[in-house]
């Protein structure tokens, strides 16, 4: 077995196991904590569907609040949208997911992917710059922020490094031409998966219940959440 065999085999499954069990354990640990039900009668009925709607519409900055600097507000959108496009829209990634799960979907054009990857990397670097220079972010940042930034950046950088030809050509090859670079790319992804449950990457799952919780708190009091 060479590096790629390890990366595609045992290490990948070990990383996925840590990821799935780790995320599940995070939720289990939360679920075993006691709850404090709201006793007072609500001012306004506010259902779980209402909470879900509010949680999803909170994706956009709220009108009426003092706007952040444009780049600070704009940058996270570039990063998250770019990352989603690269991960879910690039043909070799879709082929990888299909091999694992059997699920597939049409890919986006390579040029869109290259631009998305570049924008994602730049936005992550900008986020890092803010974190290292902005007084507020410097004050509140933790090791988790830095580790998360690193493990998110690595798959993007190593992924760009293995893109030497169009995705149609890559997928047409019977054998992988650049085995070691691809193995390194996969190892970087596996590092991200292993880190995921332990740090702030969990916000990818926690944002929804968190937003719904606040929406319910405010909504039943008759406040526009």
């Amino acid at each position: 077995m060479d590096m790629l065999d390890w990366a595609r085999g045992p290490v990948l499954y070990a990383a996925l196991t840590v990821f799935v069990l780790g995320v599940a354990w995070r939720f289990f640990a939360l679920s075993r904590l006691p709850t404090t039900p709201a006793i007072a009668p609500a001012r306004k009925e506010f259902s779980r569907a209402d909470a879900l709607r509010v949680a999803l519409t909170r994706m956009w900055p709220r009108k009426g609040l003092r706007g952040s600097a444009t780049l600070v507000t704009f940058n996270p959108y570039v990063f998250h949208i770019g990352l989603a496009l690269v991960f879910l829209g690039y043909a070799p990634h879709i082929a990888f997911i299909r091999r694992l799960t059997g699920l597939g979907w049409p890919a986006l054009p390579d040029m869109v992917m290259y631009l998305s990857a570049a924008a994602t990397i730049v936005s992550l670097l900008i986020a890092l710059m803010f974190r290292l220079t902005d007084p507020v972010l410097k004050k509140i940042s933790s090791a988790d922020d830095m580790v998360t930034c690193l493990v998110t950046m690595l798959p993007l950088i190593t992924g760009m490094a293995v893109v030497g030809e169009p995705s149609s050509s890559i997928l047409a090859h019977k054998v992988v031409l650049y085995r070691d670079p691809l193995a390194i790319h996969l190892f970087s992804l596996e590092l991200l998966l292993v880190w995921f449950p332990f740090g702030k990457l969990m916000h990818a799952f926690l944002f929804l219940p968190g937003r719904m919780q606040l929406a319910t708190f405010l909504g039943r009091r008759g406040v526009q959440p």
Partner: protein
Amino acid sequence: MIDMAVFKQFQGAIAHLGEMAKPELIADDERVARAKAVMRLKTDRALALDLESCVNCGYCSEACHFYQGTQDPKYTPTRKLDLLRRVHARESSAFAPIKRLFTRDISLQDLQDWQELVYDSCTECGRCSMVCPMGINIARGVNVMREALSEAGLVPLELMAVAQEQAGRGTVFGVGPAELAHVVEALRGQGIRVPLDEPRADVMLVTTVIDVLLFQDALAATARILNHLNINWTLRSAGFEAANFGLLSGNEALQKAASKRLIDEALAIGAKAVILPECGHAYPALRWEGRLPDGKPLPFEVLAASEFVGREIREGRLALVAGDPNRKLTYHDACKLARHGGVIDEPRAALRALGVDFRETSPTAELNWCCGGGAGAFLINRAAPLRQKAWQIKREQIEATGADTVVLSCASCRLNFMEGAEVAQSSMHIESLIELVAAQLPRPPSQ
């Protein structure tokens, strides 16, 4: 008419308030142990989710008047939960045994440092939550921090003094049943009917120390409105104080005891509703957190004064004579009433019924800027410079409306506005909503 001499006396009393406190002698280790015990106990699923989901984006600082007023990053709202976060990470989070290896335990010095962060520089206004992309209820976490510091004996001395007085003697700033009776007599002397200690009534009116001492016109106004509406109401000597220094200081036992006094009296007279005075924090204390001893919901309505008059106007039971349409008014939403209470539309219904030129601030309602004096911060002497910086944002917001008068429905906000205007030598007119409504009742008071 506010007696400014009394206001000065009140300010003077606050200046020496800390000297009245009797701090408990507690060993350093014991303080930390007590604080951690509260943090563990209060970290329920909702709080844990809040603590775990922060991505350290710092957006909350954009919404915080204390950060905006000072530009000091130590006041970033989410940072105020760091001690809770550390205790949770080490003791109750999913990977606590691993996190413990990398997360420093909290110390007495941490607790002492956090006193300023959760009392002086946070009014639990909740504005930070409105901008938080993760939906974290930071104000709730800050309140838990206050409870932890209270248990550790690390409450600011001014709040400790008043909380000890309320817990011990049942009075606040020396105001008890005798002082209430004195004010009731004074109002009756003005020809206003003020029922006191009636055995049965549909509505129990609650007042507050500030109204008894300083804003007696607000109490008079509420009485006149209730009389005008022919409501069967009463004040009760054994349960008239809306101010809850248990909530403000973080003393949960006192918070429950102070609420229980009101609840017991309301139950004793068979009240269908309790009307709270213009007091911001009294609303969440009773309306949202009040409950019967068995944990069941209160069997009566709890209404803020502004909510009550607004509702009466909206439902057509209360009409006002038209006011001066050239009079330019704006309104300050008290955070505890609006953002964390939902009392938003009713005060506006009352303001519009006044027939004046009503102008909204920008932003307004649930996004309104806090004045900086709530949650007991007004009483903390060392916090005055910080409070002033935060209040500047409020002042600019009010001035930008072009209104000549700002209307309030919270006595704490009103005190803070008066102090802020005094320090800034501002000519801003500050009025009570309930007093404006009573001044425009359709017929001269005959009670």
